[in-house]
């Protein structure tokens, strides 16, 4: 059974600092997704990583995927308050019986303080 672990689950950081959120998963996969969720709102897609070594950047966020290590990272550069949200990674497991399910991590709640 595929397990997806994010850490940390809670992250409080100061504006201007850098930090990394980690997403580890337990079985082979070459597709990984990052989502953002603002309080009381739904999930918004941030990045789709489709192969080993994939790197995507949008503004102050950069995501990467290492399928050999079964690890994805979401790096935050020079954080600003607007980045405060909960970030989820989700992994696409190898097809088993035609399953179309994603498996989500529990989320990392990021708070950026002035």
């Amino acid at each position: 059974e595929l397990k997806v672990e994010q850490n940390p689950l809670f992250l409080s950081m100061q504006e201007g600092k850098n930090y990394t959120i980690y997403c580890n998963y337990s079985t082979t996969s070459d597709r990984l997704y990052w989502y953002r969720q603002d309080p009381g709102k739904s999930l918004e897609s941030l990045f789709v990583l489709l192969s080993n070594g994939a790197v995507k950047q949008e503004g102050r966020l950069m995501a990467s995927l290492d399928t050999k290590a079964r690890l994805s990272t979401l790096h935050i550069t020079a954080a600003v308050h607007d980045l405060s949200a909960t970030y989820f990674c989700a992994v696409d497991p190898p097809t088993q019986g035609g399953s179309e399910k994603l498996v989500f991590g529990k989320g990392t709640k990021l708070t950026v303080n002035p």
Partner: protein
Amino acid sequence: DVKVTQSSRYLVKRTGEKVFLECVQDMDHENMFWYRQDPGLGLRLIYFSYDVKMKEKGDIPEGYSVSREKKERFSLILESASTNQTSMYLCASSFPREASDYEQYFGPGTRLTVT
């Protein structure tokens, strides 16, 4: 732009009532999903559907059923609502996983309170 809409943002129901949550997508996606989200538990899959009239149980199907009579619409039914079904319900849709642009798109969510 993919649009996934849900019939209500907030809903308050009484214990024992039958509750219908509706989800509609406009991207001709084959797959549709219902999740519930609770603090500390993340997203948990209730049911999903990969075609009209086809459905598959997720991780927590007990107490729920679903209906998909048309491709664009996926309904979640709580046959007899209970207080432990108070939660945020999220609908999502996607193309099949073989598609190069497989990705799940989420609706705005329905916050259901059962009293």
